[in-house]
């Protein structure tokens, strides 16, 4: 039914209003997109399709991202007009970042300066096919959660693990406004070297790696490091599953130890939920503190 009732939200980035007027022309009697069920919703939370006209500039970057984040899944982004596609004649301006795809995943590009109403309608119609596809993907993702497996990773998995790690630590970097975190700077060679010292576990869903964790034993202590979960798959219990897998694989250890940063509330919540308690705090920079958590193995 997604195809029969696409609700649109239209945002004017730094457009000259040429494309905006053409978008509005689509709603008028000549073209009347409402006969296809298309409604200009004006509210991101009700919208399925995000129509953006004009290029991204420094002032509206956050607004565009905000509107996109507020739209419920499945959603589609349609870049209308040459400015939205590439930046157009404004591409070289000092305040212009470029096309919409600089900050959002664009699904359909509509060319033209200004884009003609027929082209915009065709763009939305193409977007509908993408919408259906995304819905299928979401459904398979929900199914994939049941098929989530946590297994030992091999050296060949290193590139994929690194990719997920860099995505996952973006949110951490945002919290502390520090993009020099070591997980973000790690190179593939360094990660491959880690495979010599540590044991890696990967969480696999639909044949793709969505999270990982690394562990090494030192005496009777088991040290757990870098629980990473790909941003899309967070809040699904994958981190918990990874930790449980580590604990059951290393049940000979007397205690488990790991650390997280002090503002990472979600991590702290998860750890406390799983029975970990903190025992040490350490300042690593002006803005960041590390909190060390431990858990005694009851069997030990």
């Amino acid at each position: 039914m997604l195809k029969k009732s696409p609700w649109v939200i239209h945002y004017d980035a730094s457009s000259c209003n040429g494309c905006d007027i053409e978008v509005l022309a689509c709603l008028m009697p000549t073209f009347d997109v409402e006969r296809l069920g298309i409604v200009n919703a004006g509210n991101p939370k009700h919208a399925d399709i995000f129509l953006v006209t004009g290029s991204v500039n420094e002032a509206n970057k956050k607004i565009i991202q905000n509107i996109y984040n507020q739209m419920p899944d499945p959603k589609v982004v349609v870049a209308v007009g040459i400015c939205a596609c590439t930046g157009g004649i404004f591409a070289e301006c000092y305040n212009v970042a470029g096309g919409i795809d600089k900050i959002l995943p664009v699904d359909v590009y509509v060319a033209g300066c200004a884009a003609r109403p027929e082209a915009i309608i065709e763009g939305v119609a193409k977007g509908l096919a993408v919408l259906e596809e995304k819905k299928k993907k979401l459904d398979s993702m929900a199914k994939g959660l049941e098929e989530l497996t946590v297994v030992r990773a091999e050296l060949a998995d290193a590139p994929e693990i690194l990719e997920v790690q860099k995505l996952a630590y973006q949110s951490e970097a945002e919290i502390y406004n520090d993009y020099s975190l070591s997980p973000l700077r790690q190179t593939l060679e360094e990660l491959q070297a880690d495979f010599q010292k540590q044991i890696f576990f990967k969480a696999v869903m639909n044949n793709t790696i969505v999270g990982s964790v690394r562990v090494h034993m030192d005496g009777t202590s088991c040290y757990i490091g870098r629980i990473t979960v790909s941003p899309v798959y967070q809040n699904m219990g994958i981190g918990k599953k990874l930790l449980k897998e580590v604990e059951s694989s290393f049940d000979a250890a007397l205690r488990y130890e790991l650390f997280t940063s002090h503002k990472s509330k979600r991590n702290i919540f998860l750890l406390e939920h799983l029975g970990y308690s903190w025992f040490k705090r350490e300042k690593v920079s002006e803005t960041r503190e590390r909190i060390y958590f431990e858990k005694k193995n009851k069997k030990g």
Partner: protein
Amino acid sequence: MSKVLFIISFLIIAPLLGALLSGIDRKITARLQGRVGPSIFQAFYDVLKLLEKETLVVRRSQNFYIVFFLILVIFTTGLFAAGANILLVIFALTLSSVFFVLAGYKASSPYSFIGSQRELIQVVSYEPAVILMAIGMYMVTRSFNIGDIANYSRPLALPLAGLLVAFIYILAIKLRKSPFDLSTSHHAHQELVKGITTEFSGKALAMIEVAHWYENIIALSFVYLFFAYNPLIGVLAAVIAYLFMIVVDNSFARVKWQKAFTSSWLVAFIFGVVNIIVLSYFIK
């Protein structure tokens, strides 16, 4: 047994009819504006789509209130079909609106806040006309039971002409039509983003839509009561009232809440109270 069957079938048919009516509404509106307009089944498509979408919330509890809103609206429809006390129906309907308002407040965004406040004002605006209508119907039929009122042998619209005018006036509020679609509207009029429904998406929004189908049918059922002496004329009157509302919707701009409030109270008191005073003079 046949009464139970009637209630159940009414509960099933009412939303389907409500959806079809809103589809027809959109079609006629489009034609009035010189457009082709969507399919008359568009309302079904919209709700089925919303069920497939993700349900985003500001607070989880906001959708809890929406569930109660829907349940109470269905309950009201059931009461109506059962021919229960008209005052009970009116209060159950008001209670459902209160849950809707609470949901809007719970969502705690400035837009849904203002939408909720306006919804409250709308409830206060239409309430006098509705209660006066119940009193007028009692004075003529000597019963508050909808069953008795519907079975009254003469047309209620004649002795209650003033109350009918007052009710038609506030019908625009109940159907969320211009000039009184202050709290939220279902057209692409963009005011306050989307008013009270701003923060609802996916399944919650679908529930609001379904509740609205029921509400429309309840509102039109009240119009039917005025002409219930002949069911055919009653249905015809309800349809004409709805068509009239569509024309009104397309002819008027939205008014401010002060005007919506004062005008609906004025109409309710001038037409309604005068009607009741005249009635009390004739009926001893």
